[in-house]
């Protein structure tokens, strides 16, 4: 009996290992992609830096957008329009959406914004949505299922780029497809919608630190996890900027987007180096934890980069931080709905619909502060004019 108990114990431990392994994957899947991606065609797994794409993104930051100034989700940077007469049809329309998942607050905020945009348009009679819960295989079957229904147009927010490409390509043969956030390796979609991209995001924070931190200053870089292309691009750009600066990167640490890890890591560096002169982060969900690490150590908070989450913007405002918040705007979730109506109405759309990617600075901080919104609400949602704001977003 004893021996058997032991065997059972081992088996259960092995199973525990398996289950916990799955569980501990969740943060990766859930937090890594706070962002989407440019098409990423040339990004390889081993070398995440693409000089031409880097330069293109940095140049796009200076471009003057085409479209109404107060509605950035309708703007496009350097658009090349393609005709869509072949998709024109009379309403009412049945739109379908294959969502990669709702596995982080960024996607939650985006999804609420998209639903509200759909509700604005009576000509959308039906809106069918399938949620892939962050699983490629489920999204492949979701796309197949939607493509075979009587959808007039399919919107896809792909979970990963390479794996979803064949499914999207197959769907393109049956109906018009619009892809947004992360891309796919095919140009068959009528339009691909995304903000400028990860290089521009990463460079914005690094350039801010290069400007604000004294030469020779020690900077800590905090990253969520390795190997996620959208996050690798952010770091690759920042690394490039830091190399060209007088700053010393004393550490690059992975945090799994866990605030406790962030706070502990920053505390460790403060203690080991007697302080830090700057903190760069590849996403802002845990930026407040980094700020608190300095406070709890009783030292001033150095220049720091965050994102457009309300908790960070409030900490910035209340504590008078020297900070910057590059954004990966959630307002991009409105654009696919508008693009869909344009395509079905036979109006031209940009083939690559590159949206502006605002960076919140000290000068614009007050415009984005919304103290009544939840801590993980994204200020760049472009949702303030939508019905049921702020209640539907948790405010």
């Amino acid at each position, binding site marked *: 009996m004893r021996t058997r108990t032991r065997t059972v114990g081992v088996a259960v431990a092995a199973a525990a290992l398996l289950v916990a392994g799955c569980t501990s994957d969740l943060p990766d899947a859930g937090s890594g992609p706070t962002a989407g991606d440019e098409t990423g065609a040339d990004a390889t797994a081993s070398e995440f830096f693409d000089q031409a794409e880097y330069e293109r993104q940095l140049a796009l930051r200076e471009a003057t957008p085409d479209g109404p100034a107060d509605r950035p989700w309708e703007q496009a940077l350097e658009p090349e329009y393609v005709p869509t007469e072949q998709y024109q049809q009379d309403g009412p329309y049945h739109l379908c959406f294959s969502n990669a998942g709702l596995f982080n607050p960024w996607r939650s905020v985006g999804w609420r914004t998209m639903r509200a945009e759909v509700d604005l348009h009576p000509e959308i009679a039906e809106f069918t949505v399938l949620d892939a819960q962050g699983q490629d295989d489920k999204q492949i079957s979701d796309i197949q299922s939607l493509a075979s229904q009587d959808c007039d147009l399919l919107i896809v927010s792909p979970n990963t780029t390479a794996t979803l490409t064949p499914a999207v390509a197959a769907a393109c043969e049956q109906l018009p497809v619009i892809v947004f956030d992360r891309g796919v390796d095919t140009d068959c979609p009528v339009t691909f919608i995304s903000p400028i991209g990860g290089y521009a995001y990463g460079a914005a924070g690094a350039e801010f630190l290069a400007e604000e931190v004294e030469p020779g200053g020690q900077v800590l870089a905090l990253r969520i996890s390795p190997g996620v292309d959208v996050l690798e691009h952010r770091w690759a750009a920042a690394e490039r900027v830091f190399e060209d600066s007088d700053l010393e990167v004393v550490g690059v640490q992975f945090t799994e987007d866990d605030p406790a890890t962030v706070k502990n890591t920053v505390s460790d560096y403060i*203690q080991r180096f007697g302080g830090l002169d700057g903190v760069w982060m590849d996403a802002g969900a845990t930026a407040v934890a980094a700020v608190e690490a300095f406070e709890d150590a009783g030292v001033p908070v150095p220049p720091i980069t965050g994102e457009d989450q309300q908790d960070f913007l409030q900490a910035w405002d209340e504590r008078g931080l020297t900070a910057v918040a590059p954004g990966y705007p959630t307002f991009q979730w409105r654009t696919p709905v508008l693009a869909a109506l344009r395509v079905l109405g036979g109006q031209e759309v940009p083939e690559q619909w590159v949206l502006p990617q605002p960076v919140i600075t000290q000068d614009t901080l007050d415009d984005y502060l919304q103290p009544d919104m939840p801590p993980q609400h994204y200020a760049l949602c472009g949702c303030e004019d939508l019905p049921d704001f702020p209640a539907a977003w948790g405010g």
Partner: protein
Amino acid sequence: MTGTEPASGAAHLRWRPAPLAGLRAVAPVLVLLVALLVALAVVDPGFFDPERLLAFLRRSAPLVILAAGQYLVIVSGGFDLSVGAVVTAGVVVAAELFNLAPGLPWLVVVAVLLLGGLLVGVVNGIVSTVFAVPSFIATLGMMLVLQGAVFFWTQGAPRGYLPEDYRMLGRSAVPGAEWLPWAVVVLAVVGVAAVLFMRSDTGRTLVATGDNDVAAGLAGVRVARLRILAFALSGVAAAVAAILVGGFTGVSAQAGSGYEFQAITAVVLGGVALGGGRGSVVAAMAGAFSLQALFTLLTLLGVSGALESAVQGVIVITAVAVGGISWSRRATRTHQPVRESV
């Protein structure tokens, strides 16, 4: 193990291990802990500043408390996979409570969390004893239920902030003794309580139950009630950890993810037998300190966070395998198979 056999025929199981048996149970993990601390001192000589040691204790507190709770369940023959989800739920529920009723006294929220943890544990215990669902499945189900409920409630983006007074236990120091974090005080209280509990009759009976529940039952132990108690205490420990974690960092929808596995790893590292009946709570808590020291060391060495789970996996397999080898030798030497008790 001969040292853990209940006294034959006794209505109250009042056995005491030989004086050195306790030390023998704790020794291997203490060696490991000391080795890790020495390695930390070599890599980072400043680690032993009193201030940093206290910071280390504070950071270890949630895991050590979870390991103490997990120990109670494991030593009585079960598993509690739900503790990570309880931590997450505790953090999110506290934030939502303060969002719904700003100005709620923080002690009320603490009480709600402790009661909630107790309730989750009792349900785990009842499902796994009265309904005879293996605890592995029962608590796995509870984990999924809690995760799903938290997600459904928050839609992936928790609302509300944790106010400063609530965060005191996890974040601040004791007034008048600014060097002493509250979390270390909480840790000390829980640690002492756990040791006292395991030295009580109930604690000893719990180990006997895990060792051989049939014999314990025949000896008059209310096995189901004891196991429910173990799960309940594990749930309360998870709630305490939730209060510390939420206090330390504020709201996060992933506050407790991975904690269930870290707690099991810590207990296994402490030499506690999976399946129950063997091991000490002090060793389990030392296992948690060792795991935390290992993580700190990996960070100092620049090993990426992604490797942490791989390291944990190797530890669990190794610890259980090593335990299994020595056990099967012992079993073949001292025991004949007893068919009827299977």
